[in-house]
């Protein structure tokens, strides 16, 4: 039967071990990106003016919540790391659950959805970070990285981790889709066994 052969191919073999390793790596990458960006905060006092001889100081904070793209970045990375954690837990602790065709398909579709979600989040945060780093003289937006260097460095680290997560999720998606393909040697057996019909 076609179903049992596909399930056999999917549960045993190298592809599930490779998938497990890749999922653990992707979980770690996206979790670290979410945590580093989530804890990204820097407070600094600047001298904004002088009244006579005494300088006036004002305190400014750079937080990730100020930019909606970074909020989306944290949320999307948390969602993708949770998805990977769930898949790893299913593979490690759900040893006797049967991998039906519907479940394999839903895993492949979920992987594809998560990879597009993660790539959108990483890209939006990357372009917003580029505006923060270089400013935009046409729109008269000043760059903020010269004043909040640690905030920018932490953000850059989180971005690198997220892009590594994107690459890993693409590979995971490809492996999940390849597990859906049926082994080809089924056809020859059925055509040889079919008898000729006598009227």
């Amino acid at each position, binding site marked *: 039967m*076609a*179903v049992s052969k*596909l399930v056999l191919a999917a549960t045993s073999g190298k592809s599930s071990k490779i998938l497990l390793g890749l999922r653990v790596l992707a979980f770690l990458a996206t979790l670290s990106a979410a945590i580093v960006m989530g804890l990204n905060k820097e407070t600094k006092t600047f001298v904004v003016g002088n009244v006579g001889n005494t300088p006036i100081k004002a305190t*400014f*904070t*750079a*937080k990730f919540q*100020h*930019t*909606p*793209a970074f909020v*989306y970045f944290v949320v999307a990375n948390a969602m993708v790391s949770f998805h990977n954690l769930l898949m790893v837990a299913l593979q490690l602790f759900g040893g006797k659950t049967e991998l039906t*065709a*519907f479940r*394999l*398909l839903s895993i*492949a*579709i979920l992987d*594809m959805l998560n*990879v*597009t*979600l993660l*790539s*959108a*989040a*990483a*890209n*939006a*945060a*990357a*372009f*917003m970070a*580029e*505006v*923060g780093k270089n400013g*935009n003289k*046409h*729109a*008269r*937006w*000043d760059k*903020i990285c010269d004043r909040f260097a640690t905030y920018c460095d932490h953000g850059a680290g989180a971005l690198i981790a997220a892009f590594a997560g994107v690459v890993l999720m*693409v590979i995971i*998606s*490809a492996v999940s*889709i390849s597990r*859906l*393909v*049926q082994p080809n040697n*089924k*056809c020859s057996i*059925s*055509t040889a066994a079919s008898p000729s019909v006598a009227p």
Partner: protein
Amino acid sequence: MVNLTKRIGALVLRLAAFGAALAALIVMVTSHERASFFAVSLEAKYTDMAAFKYFVIANAVVSVYSFLVLFLPKESLLWKFVVVLDLVMTMLLTSSLSAALAVAQVGKKGNANAGWLPICGQVPKFCDQVTGALIAGFVALVLYVLLLLYSLHSVVDPFLLQKS
């Protein structure tokens, strides 16, 4: 008969996705406005923001790819690559749309904490055209997700409906 209907449906979907990506590209490229503001002349073009340039490039790539796949013959072996390339194009579309949206949102609302003023008040026509391009990009993205699911279904048989 069912196969012919499905193929025509997929062809129509791909034509629509090609049209949407092309429309997003053209509307973004032709967005251009000059405004003078207290003796300072401000000219807004799509090349001012890196995210809009990436949006234009991504939609150009997707349009060219859709146009080429429209002419792919039915029995060609390249349909397996179409699944992979459809996923790549979907990712390209979501990332470019998301980046352009993030930057456009700052242009519309500004960012008070960073001292960035919104520019939509000074160049409203530019802002409207960028919004239109982003909506067309979103339509192209939705169509591409449907196309990805269809390519996956036609190359791989996920529900194992065929017995042989």
